[in-house]
Each structure stands twice: as C-alpha cells, then as structure tokens.
C-alpha cells in the first residue's frame, strides 16, 4: 500500500513542486515587504515544475489507486497550462490592475500557483471525486482572482456572479456524480465505464450526464451554461480574464475529454482509430453536437453587438469553445488531437489579444471599441500585431488560427459530419464581422485629435512578440505541434 504511494509520488514531482512553491510563497509573502521576491519565487517554482514535467514525457501511469493518471494526454495539458500560466504571470507584471493592488500583489501570484495545481489535477484525475475536488480548487481560486480588485465594483460583482454560478454548477455536478455512483457503485471512471458497458441503461444515466455536463459546461463556458462568462470576463482584471478564457477552459476541456473518452467508450469494442465505439447508452455525441452548435453560434452572433472589447472577446471565447467542442464530439483520435492543436493555437492568439487589450486599457483607461479608432495608424506595432491575433482568431492563413480550424474541420469531415463542418465554417464567417470592426476602428477610422500616441516599452513589445511570433510561425510550420498533439492522444487508441 505504501509502496504504491511511494511509487506514485515519483511521477507527481511537478505537482509537488507547485505545492511547495505555493506554501513557501505564502510564507515569503508574509515575511517580505518587497513583493517582487514572491513573484520571482513563483516564476522560479513554475519553471522548475516545468523542468521536472519534461522528464515525465513518456510516462503512462495510473497512480494513487487509480485516482490519478500521469500520461501523455495530461502531460500535454500540463505543459500547455504551465506555458499559459508562465505567460500570464509575466503578462500580469505589466498589468496596472494587478500592480495597483500593492498590498495583495504577492497573494495574486500565489493564487496563480494554486490555480495551476487545481488545473493540473483536473487534467490528470481519473476519479469523479478527484475531478470534483480539483474542479473546486480551480473554481475557488478563480473566484478569488476574479474578485481580486475588491475595491472595484465590477470586480466584486464578477466574483459574486462567478461564485454563485460556480457553486450552483458544481452542486449540480456532484448531484449528478451521486446518481452515477448509485448506478455503478464506483467513482473510478474505468470501473464506471465497465459497469456501463455491462448493461447499465436508464434514464438516470442521461439525467446524471446532463447534470455533470452543467459542471463541465460551466467550466468551458458552453451554451447554455455560459451566462457567467461575459460578465465575469468583463469585470475581472484582464490577466484573470485571460486565465479563465485560456487556462481554465483548457483544464475544463482536458477533464471533459478524459471523462468522455473513458466513460462513454465501449471497452470491449476493438479499438479503432477513427471510431472508438461509443456506448449507445447516452446520446452523448448528439448532446455535444447541440451544445457545440449553440455555443459557437450564440457566441458569434452576440459578439457582433458588443462594444466593450473585453466583452467582445468574452463572447468570442464562447464561440471558440464551440469550435473546440466540435473537435471533442467526433470522439476519435483525430478530433481529440485537433482539439489539442486548437487549444495551443488559441492560447497564443487569445492571450495575445487580451494582452494588447490590457496594455491599451492601461494607457487609455478604456476597453471601448471606439477608443481604438485610428490606433493602427498611431501605433503601427500594436495595429499589426493585434491584427495578426484577430486574423488568427478568425481563422485565416497564414496564422495559427487557420491551422487550428483546419484540423477541427478535418476531423469533422473525416467523420463525415459535413453539415456540422459547414455550420462551423459559416460561423467563422460570422465571426469575421466583429473582428473586422476592430480592424476598421484601428485602421479605417481617424483618431480623435485628443488621442495620445501610445508607446510601448521594450518589455511590452517583447511580450507581445512572444505571442505574435508563435501565432505566425505555427501558421507556417505546424508539424511539431501536430506531432505533439497526436502523440498526446495516441494513448487513447490502444485503450
């Protein structure tokens, strides 16, 4: 028994390092007035976790009595999440919102570490209670981060809405879990899978799936569980919004994908690459299809009406969740790998876009789309890089966004879900409407004479480029990304 625990421990070094980082930085934050020390310690902790993570690349282990899996799939997400969090930590250092709250600055960063731990756990959990726990860890930290600027009404409001919505959703989810437990007598998703395959069929399964999906749907902001998203994205500090739209959404997807793959796939079917053999007990693909179509369509067409850029990006990120779900619902290796590819691509373009919104918001104190008039001419660097991110979000070559969409639609077409693919591409046409409005304001409209020149520091420029260059490069040369994504899901093929 202790052997098992000892054995398991060697594979969770990255998580352990993060926990230590969290604990030490709490202490450091109490000791030192200079919060920079905490920040650098957090960065160091994240980096060392990253380094130790790299040694795990070929591990495929079920640990802690099947509670936890360290495998290529979770490995992919952990690398993804650490990259995102590291980026956002650096990003936050440039944020006025965060630096203005001097007294709680250190806390902000160690909460980021806690969030990372939560997301790590989400991506690796193979037990429903573990999933619920890690989801709650992530959520709690997110509520706190969203309300971090507690003197600001919008931030407080965001955190209230978030916490109520989140608590409700997780409550429904745990109720759903309880029903599943009642039917299968287990929390272990593998065991549940076997039980389901052995002939548990009932309406209760459907209702519990739907209830569990409330939890997942809330995490990935899928329609109709997305309602918190625009308000929380708008009210939170931009760096937190970025985390929510990228990292925590990715973590949600990792959990959802693992859950779907393990629970709803026929364990006795001979494994096939393109068809995992979905158990016919719950119309899971249909449910996902409806969710996905609703999500991307609603996200896009409501985004058309937004004038606040954070809110616009919030709706756009809802729409992107819809695209991601398209990849998930194919329930095969290809679709899963396409989702992973899209997530990576989305990381760069979305964080880049938020970064620019934040920098502009720092300088001109406005997120309104009208304040972007003439920006492209006043500040060509911002104009060009922002355009790049927006093109990528639209999904046009030569940017990474195109590659992401390409793989998603490839997966759909290969599964002969043509109609869904058509809906997907038409949605990306709709999305052009509102992205183009930003171009238009930046380049086609004249700026007011009162508008100041926006100058960026070298650090800011480098940070923007750190997101812009991958966005471009991945559009031109994406083989490593695709290989990585394939490798990460290929463990599912054998089952």
């Amino acid at each position, binding site marked *: 028994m202790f052997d098992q625990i000892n054995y398991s421990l060697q594979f969770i070094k990255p998580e352990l390092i993060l926990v230590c980082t969290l604990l030490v930085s709490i202490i450091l934050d109490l000791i030192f007035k200079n919060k920079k020390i905490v920040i650098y310690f957090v960065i160091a902790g994240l980096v060392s976790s990253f380094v130790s993570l790299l040694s795990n690349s070929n591990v495929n282990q079920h640990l802690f009595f099947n509670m936890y899996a360290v495998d290529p799939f979770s490995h992919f997400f952990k690398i993804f999440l650490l990259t995102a969090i590291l980026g956002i930590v650096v990003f936050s250092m440039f944020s006025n919102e965060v630096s203005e709250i001097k007294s709680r600055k250190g806390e902000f960063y160690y909460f980021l570490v806690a969030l990372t731990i939560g997301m790590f756990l989400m991506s690796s959990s193979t037990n429903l209670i573990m999933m619920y726990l890690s989801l709650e860890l992530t959520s709690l930290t997110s509520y706190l981060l969203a309300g971090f600027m507690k003197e600001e009404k919008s931030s407080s409001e965001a955190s*209230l*809405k978030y916490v*109520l*919505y989140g608590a*409700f*959703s997780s409550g*429904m989810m745990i109720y759903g879990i309880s029903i599943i437990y009642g039917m299968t007598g287990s929390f272990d998703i593998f065991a549940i899978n076997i039980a389901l395959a052995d002939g548990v069929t009932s*309406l209760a399964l*459907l*209702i519990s799936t*739907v*209830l569990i*999906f*409330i939890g997942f749907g*809330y995490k990935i902001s899928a*329609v*109709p*569980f997305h*309602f*918190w998203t*625009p*308000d929380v994205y708008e009210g939170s500090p931009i760096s937190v919004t970025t985390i929510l739209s990228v990292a925590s959404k990715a973590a949600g997807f990792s959990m959802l994908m693992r859950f779907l793959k393990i629970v709803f796939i026929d364990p006795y079917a001979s494994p096939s690459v393109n068809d995992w053999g979905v158990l016919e007990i719950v*119309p899971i693909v*249909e*449910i996902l299809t*409806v*969710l996905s179509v609703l999500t991307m369509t*609603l996200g*896009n*067409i*409501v*985004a*058309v*009406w937004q*004038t606040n850029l954070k809110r616009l990006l919030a709706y756009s990120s809802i729409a992107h969740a819809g695209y991601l779900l398209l990849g998930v619902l194919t329930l095969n290796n290809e679709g899963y790998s396409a989702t992973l590819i899209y997530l990576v691509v989305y990381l760069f373009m979305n964080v880049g876009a938020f970064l620019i919104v934040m920098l502009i918001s720092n300088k001109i104190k406005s997120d309104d789309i009208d304040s972007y008039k003439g920006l492209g001419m006043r500040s060509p660097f911002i104009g060009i890089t922002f355009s790049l991110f927006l093109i990528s979000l639209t999904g046009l070559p030569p940017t990474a966004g195109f590659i992401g969409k390409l793989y998603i639609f490839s997966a759909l077409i290969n599964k002969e879900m043509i109609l869904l693919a058509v809906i997907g591409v038409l949605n990306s046409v*709709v999305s052009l*409407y509102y992205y*183009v*409005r930003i171009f*238009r304001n930046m380049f086609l409209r004249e700026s007011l004479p009162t508008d100041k020149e926006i100058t960026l520091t070298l650090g800011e420029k480098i940070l923007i480029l750190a997101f812009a260059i991958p966005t471009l490069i991945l559009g031109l040369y994406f083989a490593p990304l695709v290989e990585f994504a394939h490798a990460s899901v290929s463990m599912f093929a054998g089952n």
Partner: protein
Amino acid sequence: MTETLLLQFATAILFIPLVSFLILIFFGKKLSKKSSLVGLTLIGSTLLLSLIIFFTKLNFFHDATIDYTFTWVNFGSSEITIDLGIMIDNMTAVMLVVVTLVSFLVHLFSISYMEGDIRYSRYFAFLGIFSFSMLGIILTNNFFMMYVFWELVGLSSYLLIGHWYEKTSAANAAKKAFIVNRVGDIGMFTGIMILWSTFATFSFDEVFHGLSLGILPFDSTAWLTAAGILIFCGAVGKSAQFPLHVWLPDAMEGPTPVSALIHAATMVAAGVYLVARVFPLFTADALIVIAYIGVITAFISATIAMAQNDIKKVLAYSTVSQLGYMIMGLGVGGFTSGFFHLVTHASFKAGLFLGSGSVIYAMHHVLHHHNDHHTDPQDIRNMGGLKKKMPITFWTFLVFTLAISGVPLTSGFLSKDDILAGTLAFSDLTGHTLIPIIAFTVAGLTAFYMFRLLILTFFGTHKDENRLNEIHESPWQMTTPLIIFAALSFFFFYSPSPTSASDGWFYNAIEKPESVVPENVSAASIESFEEAVHHNHGTAMFLSLTVAGLGILTAFVTYYWKKINPEKIMNTFPSLHRFLSMKWYFDEFYDRTVIWFTMMTAKVLAWFDFKIIDGIVNGVATVSRITANGSGKFDNAVVDGLVNLTAYSIGFFGLILRTVQTGKVQSYLAFAIVGALMIFFFFN
C-alpha cells in the same frame, strides 16, 4: 504577271490604306494640310494597283480563282485551325476597282470640301481605315475575316458619321449606326457559328465544298436556311434593309463625301457583295426571304423619299431603295444583275451625293457669308434655279438622275432593267407576283422623286435672288469627280449595247455560281432562270420605260409646270403625308418598343440588383434597425457591416439573444437549468 504577284498587289491594296491611316493618325497634326495629299496619293496607288489587277485578272486569269491561305490560329491540334487568306476572282477584281475608284474620287472631292475643318487630317485618316476595312471585305476568302472587316467597316462608319461629334445629332447617328449594324452582325455571327460548328472551317470554298457533299448543319435543311438568312442579317444591317434601315438616313449627319463613299457607293453595297459572295449556300426559302426583304425595303424607302425635303435625306432613302433593289435582284436569282446594279449604282449614286455636296457647299458658303445660321443649306425648298450658277453640277446631276431613273443609254437602265426582268422571271417560276408589281411601282416612284429633287434644286426660281447671284460653281477638285462619275454612268463602259447588258464584259466576267445546297431546297436552276429572264426581257423593258416615263412626267407636271399643287395633295391626305415624312414611324416604333424595353429592363434589373439581391429583405433590416434604435443601442457601424439577409438576421438574432444577458445571476442560473432540462427532454 503571275498569280503570286497579283496576290502581292492585292495585299498591298489592302494594307496601303491602313498605312495611310497610321501615318495620318500619328502625324496628322504635323502634316496638317498635307494630310489630304498623303491620303490621296496612297489611295491613288491602290486605284492603280486595282486597275492592274482588274485588267490582268479579266484578261489573263479569267476563269481562275487566285487564292492564298495561311493558318492564323492553331488550337494545338492540326484538326482545328483557323485559316485566313485572301482570294481574287472576277467579282473581287470588279469590286476592287469600284471601291478604290470611288474612294479616290471622294478623296479628291474632299480636299476642298473639307477645307478648314478642325479635324482635317483625322478625316482622311478615317477614310483610310474605311478603305482598309472595305477592301478587306472584298478580298477575304473566309467568313471570319469577312466578319472582322464587317465590324471594322462599321467602326469606320461610326467614326466618320460622328466626325462632327460636337453635334448631338451626329453623335447619336453614329451610335445608332453602330448599334443597328451590330444587331445585324449578331445574326451574321450566329450564321457563321452554325457553319463553323458544322464544318469547322471558315473558308468559303471549304464550306461550299462541304455543303455540296451533302453535309448539312445539324443535319437539317432548316438550319441551312437559317444559316443563310442569318448571314443575310449582316447584309440587312450593313445594306440598311428593312427592318434595320433606320440608321442610314441618320448617317447623313456625316460629311457629304462620306455619305457618297460609304453610305451610297461602297459600304452599304457590302451587304449586297456579301449576299453575292455566299450566294451558293442560300436555299430557295432563304432566297425568297431575301427577295421580300429587298422589295419591302425598296418600296418603303421610295415612299419615304417622296416626302423628304432634305437633299441628302432624299438621296439617302433613294440609296436604301436602290439597295433594296439589289437585294431583291439577288433574292430573285438575278445574281449578275443584282451585282451589276451595285456597280452602276456606285457611280451614279456617289455622283449624286457629290453633286449634292457641291450644292450644299455652295449654299453653305453663301449662308455663311450672310451669317445666316437659320436657313438649312440642305433643304431643297431653300434652293432652286441653281442650274445657271452651277452648270457642271447641274449637268452631271442630270445624268445621274437619268441613270437612277433607268432611262435608256444610261448604265442604270442596263442594270435596273435586268433586275426587273429577273423579278418577272421569278414570279413566273415561283408565283410570287407581288415582287414584280412592287418592283415596277418603285421604279416609277424613283423616277418621280429624283426628278422632283432635280427640279426643285436646279430649276425654277430661288427665293432670294441676291443670294443666288453669289452662288458659284465649285472648284475643280469637286467638279472633276462629278464629271468622271457622270461619264461612268453611261452604258458604253459596261456593254456595247445600250439595251442589253448581257453582251458586255461584265456579264461575261460575273457568272452566277452553282448552288451547293441539296436539290430539293435549292432555287430554280440557272438554265431555267436564264430561260425565264430571256422570255421576260422585252416585257420588262417596256414596262420599266413606261413607269420611268410616267414618274418623270408626273414630276415635271407637278413641280416644273406646277399643274398639280403638291400642297393640295398633301392636305388631302395629311395623315399619309405625315406617315411618309415621319418615315413610317420606324424610329418612334423602335424607341417605344425595343429601346424602351431594353432601358426599362436595364433600370429594373439595376434596381433589382441594388435593392433585392444586395439588400435582401429590407424588412428584416428595418425591423432590426427599429428595434435597435428603440433600445438606443444601435451600432450604426455594425449595420453598415451587415449587408444582406443573413447578416441582418444574424444581427437580429444576436440582438434578441443578448437580451438574455440581463446581468442578473439568478436568471442566468434559471436559463442554465432550463437549458439542461431541455437537453434532457430533447434527447429523452
């Protein structure tokens, strides 16, 4: 003199006018006055070469067809190629002389006529390009080039009619000429398409050869007839046949020498030439259509000519009428006579126009001298008594008038008589008796209105004696062509006998080609037709002399001796007179039907395009706009971006959906749980 040399000459004839055009268009400004000399010299040289070809061909290669072909476009396989080339047969040789001669004389005439014109050099340049295209039509041995030059002739006609483009009427006339011609050309092009789809060649010879082997377009004689009629459409346009004749009278807006050259002698005759060229492929039905078109044209325009007062308009309608004659002649099967009338008509009609040009020139000078810009120098009612002041013009004009009226000893008598004989023969053979009846009526009408013109212009008294005294004869550059044309209007140039053309060299050289269409749809054979013509020759001559005489007599009675008051007759039949003077209301008819319809369609479609296709369902747009305005959140810029139905509805639904986002977290939760329940029930 070898065939090769002849071909080289022919090529030279074709390109010399082009060279003239290029020189004058690029260096015209520098040459200024000398441009006319350049043009004259170059066209003179073509005349010389044409004469050489003419005599050589008729004397040494009488029965040969000299032909040169090269591959112009190769579609990557040897099976389909487009071959172009030129050919010289007797018809070509005759036409070459006619065209270059008229062209040369018109050049000569224009030197003084156009003096002082602001675009003097450009005028001669355009004459050059006209000559080029006209000669192209004559020399070609295939349909493709025929069509190409056909259109180019249309272009030069357009440019020359629009020479004084500052005048709206001139610009309109030019446009009308081009477009009406194009309508005919489309028919011709369609005809050519039919032949090309069948034979994959444009060459006349090869098409005829194919037909004579029994290959029919789309295996049907109907399509063959259609092809013939469609190609004839080209002639309808260019030769101003009913119903496309409306452009020619308007074309008189161009300078008078141009009218003489293009709109009387050569270009309009191209249609006749075309019909003659492709004569073998006409079926009997096609020929009947052609004959009727010709005779209807002749009749309509003759009646209109009677009621016109503008000297050039009268001549224009007379031209249309005579062209109708030629077409009719060909249609009834009188191949040689129809073509012969083309040649004789060229000289006397060119002469008539130049004569009228001379008169107008004189009138214009006088009016100009008196600063009178109200009196129309072309209105015959303002003329009269010019006989003494302009003797050369008068005497030559008289010769032309006699010739066109078909008075014996003139060339016109020879050709016209033969055509009339042909119509009689045709009615004998086919029973279409209406054709000869109208043909003879038209002969009488022609004599009447031509003498009316002559009398009103040259006889009688001028309204204003003082002004009459200032009128004087035109310079030699203008009278010389008149004299030459007058000379050419006598019979001896064409035939030793004043009564029978068939003895002359012309009938010897130009023979009716054998039809290549299948026998059951072919017209009467040459022998039977010749037989019938011969049989009717005497009758025709007698009748034609009678009607011509009657016509002349009526003219003299009415306008010279004034025994009949034309005003009175007009007042008796006012509507008839208005009908004739308004040219049978053809223009009005077209304006209110075809053109109106086209413009309306265009406008409706443009509206449709703008409103419907583009801004599909404004209703949705409006709803969205009203809703949005009401809520005060309308983003004008967004609606700008939303251009059509989809966009509007997307916006609209977006607008509705966003109202769900109330900001109240409990309603969010309610929606979430309702959503979850709906998913459950949906998939239950």
